[in-house]
Structure formats: structure tokens, C-alpha cells
């Protein structure tokens, strides 16, 4: 927990990468976590092979939700939508490099949820507690 706010998380929060909106975008999706008011919107542009050529996120919320979105945007650069499908909860946790309780887990996972539902309409995505 001591490294909960490791420098690089705070850095991503204060200086988010790929922040903003894409217009036009091939894929846009937004969702929120009503419990805490975190909101994440993700816009993607993909090439003919469904590879991500540009991505951006916007929204507001806690350091964990915003930093994880920012890191996720970096991670997915150049990846194909199929590769994104494979992204798991563990990948996000590894990316953040910290342990999280159930409430904060939801914050951390919001961007992945938005990405997956946006890219695949995976409506059965479950907010694991």
C-alpha cells in the first residue's frame, strides 16, 4: 500500500498521456462508476487490420482511474483489437504495479471496461469485486 501512489501513478494522473477526444473516431465509448463518480471516455482510430493507430481518453475521477486509463492508452498503441481482447485484470494490476482493495479495483478497471465494451460490445463484462 505504501507504493500506492508511486511516483509514476501520480505522474500519469498529473500529466495524462493521450488525453483528449478524437473526432472523428472509429470507436467511442464512455462509462462511469456511479459509486465514486469516475467517468472515462475512450476514442480509437483503427487501420484496416483493426490495429489501433490513435487512441485518446477523457473523463474525470480519482488518480487510480485516470492513471490507469493513461497507462492503458500507452499500452494499446499499435495493438490489434484482438490483442486487446486478451487484456486481463492482471495486466492492469501489473501495469499499475500496486495492490488494490475491492473499491479501488473498480476504479482501476474502469478504463479496461470502457475499452472492451467499446471495442467488442462485451456486455457481459462483470465488475469483479
Amino acid at each position, binding site marked *: 500500500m505504501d507504493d500506492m501512489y508511486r511516483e509514476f501513478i501520480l505522474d500519469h494522473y498529473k500529466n495524462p498521456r493521450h488525453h483528449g477526444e478524437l473526432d472523428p473516431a472509429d470507436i467511442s465509448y464512455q462509462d462511469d462508476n*456511479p459509486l465514486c463518480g469516475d467517468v472515462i471516455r475512450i476514442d480509437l482510430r483503427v487501420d484496416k487490420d483493426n490495429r489501433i493507430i490513435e487512441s485518446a481518453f477523457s473523463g474525470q475521477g480519482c488518480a487510480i482511474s485516470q492513471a490507469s486509463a493513461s497507462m492503458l492508452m500507452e499500452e494499446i498503441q499499435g495493438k490489434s483489437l484482438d490483442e486487446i481482447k486478451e487484456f486481463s485484470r492482471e495486466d492492469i494490476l501489473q501495469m499499475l504495479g500496486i495492490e488494490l*482493495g*475491492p*473499491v*479501488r479495483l473498480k476504479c482501476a478497471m474502469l478504463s479496461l471496461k470502457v475499452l472492451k465494451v467499446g471495442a467488442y460490445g462485451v456486455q457481459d463484462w462483470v*465488475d469483479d*469485486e
Partner: protein
Amino acid sequence: MSLVELDSGKIRAEFPALSREIRPGVPLVYLDTTATSQKPLRVLEAMERYYRWHNANVHRGIHTLAEEATAEFEGARTKIAEFIGAQDSREVIFTRNATEAINLVAKTWGSSNLKEGDRIVVSEMEHHSNLVPWQMLSAEQGLEINVLPVTEQGELDLREWERLLNKEPKIVCFTHMSNVLGTLNPVAEMCAQARDAGAVSVVDGAQSAPHLPVDVRAIGADFFAFSGHKMCGPTGGGVLWGRAKLLNEMPPFLGGGDMIKRVQMTGFEPNEIPYKFEAGTPSICEAIGLGAAVEYLESVGMESIWKHEQELISYALEGLGEINGITVYGPEAHKRGGVASFTLEGVHPHDIAQVLDRDGVAVRAGHHCAMPLHTKLNVVATARASFYLYNTQDEVDLLVEGIGRVRDMFR
């Protein structure tokens, strides 16, 4: 061969109340588990530990205690789900008791799926908690309650059951095990038949979950209700298990915190299951206590507990049968659990219970919240002795001797 396979000494040592003396020199012989069970140390310890170290409100908290409390509370849900063979712990809804669990079904599934003239089948051996909620619902919505009668042998009338199913009831409600007769009903067959007839089934498991291995999927019920306090858990904690599909379709029960996803002054959006049905601060410690209780029961083994009780009831029915003027209700030993309700000619059950209490023998007397069944048995009250994993053959002997003394006193 020893009658009892459980290690009685070890088990009884786990239950502080069993070392109680009712009066100096008169030890407690607790034969009232059907009303509520005694509690083992490890359940008391789990609750104590929670309050001493981890107490916090659940679900919404970020601080350490809140996370620990949430993990314990949800961990209990998972344990309980496994204990009853639920596929998904989200199908386990915490209620105060079996009664609230059944009311929940009546007030949500019932009021959103039933309409005037629809039929409900309710058995005649039900505890009031699986009867009165349906009566209330019927009165509100103009439903028809069809009574599934009890036979002379104290079993459900399965001929009549078929006839009633042919009338296409929307919902059928019966107990897994009678709290008066001890009768074990063929719930798996009945649930399958109900399903074929297009009816939803509500099984009252208040007397089965504590005493025998229960697998809600094998039973095939749609809803299954039970109370923690009858199975080594604390008061204030019960469970409704329901099929996720049905639960998802049902409207919420009570309104308040936790059961919502979003609220505005003009309306609200309900939360996912199970939270949709758990408004307000839940019975956190009670759930944790029940989690510890099912862990304890599993450590002893539900098969062993059931076998032990079967042995006790056989032995008890034999002993009781030899008392002059006694009538013991219900079917033969192999068709029932560890419950024996009886009357004694010329002696009111209250007097039986009172005189037995002088010898430390605790039994119930009354209608045991099953007035219609007593009407059927043509008595106003019975005395009832019931057994659990911690009871012994010696205690059965004390019961039988005690009743003998009651009979002599009133001769």
C-alpha cells in the same frame, strides 16, 4: 457397534451452553434445536474477532477496516453459496431469517408475476412463515391458495399434489422438512414436477439446511430459504437463495443504501444482485458468523450429522413408543429428521414442558408456528423434542424417563 459415530465429547465441548446447569446440579439437556440451535465457540470467536479488529461498514469503504470487513462479509457469502451448492455466490441474499427470505419472494417475484385468479399451492404442514406471506399476497392480489394436504402418516399427499399441479399453479411452496412431524419431503421430485407444470417452486429449508447435505441445484428449486440461527449461526442472519435469472428479473424488495446504482430526487436505478435485495447496512457480523457456522458444520460433515440424528430419532421413537398414553406424530424414523412431537393423554403439552424443565430437559410446547397442521392433527398443541449433532443417546434416555415421571405425576 457404537450407535454414535460423532465424537460427542469433542463436539459438546465446542458448545458452551451445553455445560450450563439449569439449577445447581441439574445440567441442561437441550432438545429445542428446531427452535434455535446452540452456538459453537468458533462462531462466537469469529464474531468477537470481527467486532474487536475488523468492524466497519462494508462495500463503500476504502480504509483498511472497511476493506477487511467487506472481504469477510463477501467471503461468508461465498462459503454459504458453496455449502448449499449454489452456482454463483450472487444468488445468496442475506436476510434476517427464513421468514424474511420467503416474504422477499412473495413481495417481489410474487407481486410482479401473479395476477388475480392465479393459483398458489401451499402445503398443510408449513410453518407460518411459508404460509402467511402467501395469504397476505393472495389477499392483496386476489389469488387462490390451494392446500396440499398431509396424510394420516404425516406425509404430503402426493396424489393430491398431482391433481393440484394439473390446475396449473404459478407457484408452489413447501417445506423440505417439517418442524413438527420431522417429515422429509421428496423435494427434488416435487420441484421437477412443478417445473414441468410451469410453476416456480419455493422450498423452505429452515429445517433441512442445518441437518442434512443440501444442494440447491440437485433439489432443483427456484427459491430456497433458511435461517442461520438454527444451524449454529447467530440470530439476525438468514438466507434466500434464488436462481440468478429470476433474481435479475425481480423488482427490488426494500429501498435504501447499497441496493441502488444511482439515485436522483426523481427516481433511482437498482443495483445488481445480490445487492439489489440488501437495502441498508447488512447484518455484517451475522453473515460472518453464519460463514463460520457452515465451516464448522462442514468440518464435522453434514453426512455424519444427518446419520447421527437418524440414529437418535430411531432410538427416541423406540423409547417414546413405550410410554403409556403417548401419541407421537409423524412418519417412521427413516422418513424423517431428528424431531419428535407428541402428546400425553390427560396432560397438556405446556405441563409436560414445564415439568421436564425441572429436570433440565428443554423441549418446546405449543403449535410450533404450525397451527393449521395442529388443526389437522386435531390437537391444540404438542410437546416437541428435537436433536442436533450435539445431542446424545443419554439425553434421549433422560427425556424418556422425564416423560415417564410426568405421566406418573398426572396419573
